[in-house]
């Protein structure tokens, strides 16, 4: 796309061609940084929920002055051809020409479909709430898409959009336990229903294991920021920082660490975090794998605000030990997280690690025992302690 931008710059400047983008990303702010980095200032429309129902990106369309598609994926960057076959052509208006400017629907007068409403009615209701209701109506959008799925569980797009809404809530202050897991579950459902839908596939791959990645998704972000700053500009801020899987490069083989790893609490003598100063959420991506395949676990640690819990950063770093069942492989059994410079802090911390199921796995749910060790304080100036919390990493295996 930057290629098209550069190749058509003169035509754009002369007013002969208008560039427009529609982004199909979960986090549109990342596209804003991308546009700034590539110095592409044209209008961008946001379609995180894929209302367009496109199965793949990128798609380039040459659209005439009446809104009619004249070319699909014209040869990339071939401006001479585009001028001859599109820009210099005169097109007739279609028999019926829509074109009223569309406005935001009046959400105050919006009513849900009857309880007996079909999947399309619930999906349409959810679309309006999801796209135009913002964070205020996101729960309603989630309810509408869930109702759509109750009406027809095989509606792949309802599954996909429900997942998008869950992940958006997960990334917001209104996050609820399980939101990320539900997002992954419904994206996986959507992909199982329609395995040819690459937009569905990419959402899972964004968070999934390296063996399944087509490319690193957001490895360009740091380069973009550096180059934008070098130009004397302030990089467009990101609402959610990409991390872990979103930076990870694809790999063709699963290679567990061969370095000797010593278990930090083999006899289980460290006191358990009975007061739940820290909550631990685990998400397997994908949630169901075939024998021999890999899953990537996201392990999220959050100090509990009601308990005034804080990380104690003057002590040792958070440690995580995984004890895989026989035949299962794990990238590393012993993982740690570096400490931030502050003496105490309250941020969520995330570890990511990949596991591989044995070739001979049977179908069924598998629990991988693990535990975390961390230093936590009751309050900013409260008592600090060293605690252990046992964790179960859950993933399902399904033989085809």
């Amino acid at each position, binding site marked *: *796309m930057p290629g*098209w931008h550069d190749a*058509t710059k003169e035509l754009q400047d002369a007013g002969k*061609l*208008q*560039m*427009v*983008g*529609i*982004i*199909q*990303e979960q986090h*549109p702010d990342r*596209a*804003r940084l*991308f*546009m700034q980095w590539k110095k592409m200032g044209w*209008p*961008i*429309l*946001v*379609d995180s929920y894929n*209302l*367009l*129902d*496109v*199965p*793949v*990106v*990128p*798609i*380039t*369309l*040459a*659209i*005439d*002055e*009446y*809104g*009619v*598609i*004249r*070319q*699909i*994926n014209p040869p990339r960057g071939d401006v001479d051809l*585009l001028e001859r076959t599109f*820009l210099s052509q005169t097109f007739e208006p*279609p028999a019926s020409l*829509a*074109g*009223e*400017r*569309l*406005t*935001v629907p009046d959400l105050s007068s919006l009513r849900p479909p009857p309880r007996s409403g079909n999947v399309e009615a619930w999906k349409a209701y959810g679309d309006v709430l999801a*796209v*135009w209701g913002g964070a205020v109506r996101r729960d309603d959008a989630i309810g509408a898409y869930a109702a759509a799925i109750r009406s027809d569980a095989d509606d792949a797009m309802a599954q996909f959009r429900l997942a998008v809404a869950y992940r958006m809530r997960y990334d917001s202050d209104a996050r609820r336990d399980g939101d990320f897991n539900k997002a992954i579950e419904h994206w996986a459902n959507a992909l199982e229903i329609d395995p040819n839908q690459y937009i569905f596939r*990419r959402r899972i791959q964004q968070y999934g294991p390296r063996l399944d990645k087509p*490319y690193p998704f*957001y490895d360009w972000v740091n380069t973009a920021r550096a180059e934008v700053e070098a130009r004397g500009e302030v990089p467009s801020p990101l609402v959610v920082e990409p991390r872990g899987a979103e930076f990870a490069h694809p790999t063709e083989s699963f290679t567990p660490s061969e370095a000797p790893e010593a278990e930090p609490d083999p006899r289980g003598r460290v006191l358990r975090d009975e007061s739940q100063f820290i909550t631990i959420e685990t998400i397997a991506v994908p949630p169901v794998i075939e024998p021999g395949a890999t899953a990537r676990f996201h392990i999220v640690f959050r100090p509990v605000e009601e308990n005034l819990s804080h990380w104690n950063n003057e002590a040792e770093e958070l440690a995580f030990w995984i004890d895989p069942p026989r035949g299962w492989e794990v990238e590393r059994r012993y993982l740690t997280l570096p400490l931030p410079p502050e003496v105490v802090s309250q941020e969520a911390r995330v570890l990511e690690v990949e596991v591989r199921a044995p070739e001979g796995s049977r179908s069924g749910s598998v629990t991988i025992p693990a535990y975390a060790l961390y230093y936590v304080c009751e309050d900013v100036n409260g008592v600090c302690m060293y605690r252990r919390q046992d964790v179960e990493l859950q993933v399902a295996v399904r033989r085809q």
Partner: protein
Amino acid sequence: MVHHRKASILSLVMILSATCVTAVGAQGRRAATGFQVGQSFPEIAFPSLETDRPMSLADFRGKKLLLHVFASW
């Protein structure tokens, strides 16, 4: 005469072949992208990345567009 008929048949075959290839190509592209040449672009409003206000392609009526449906990854 025979040559002329052969040439006609050959032309017909070529035209039919070209038509089939074109038709298959168009269908393939439609299946691959969800769009079809000659179809009006769907009238859907989306939030603008910069302003959050609704925008649709109707906002650009009267201009020739190169529309990119994309992701930054």
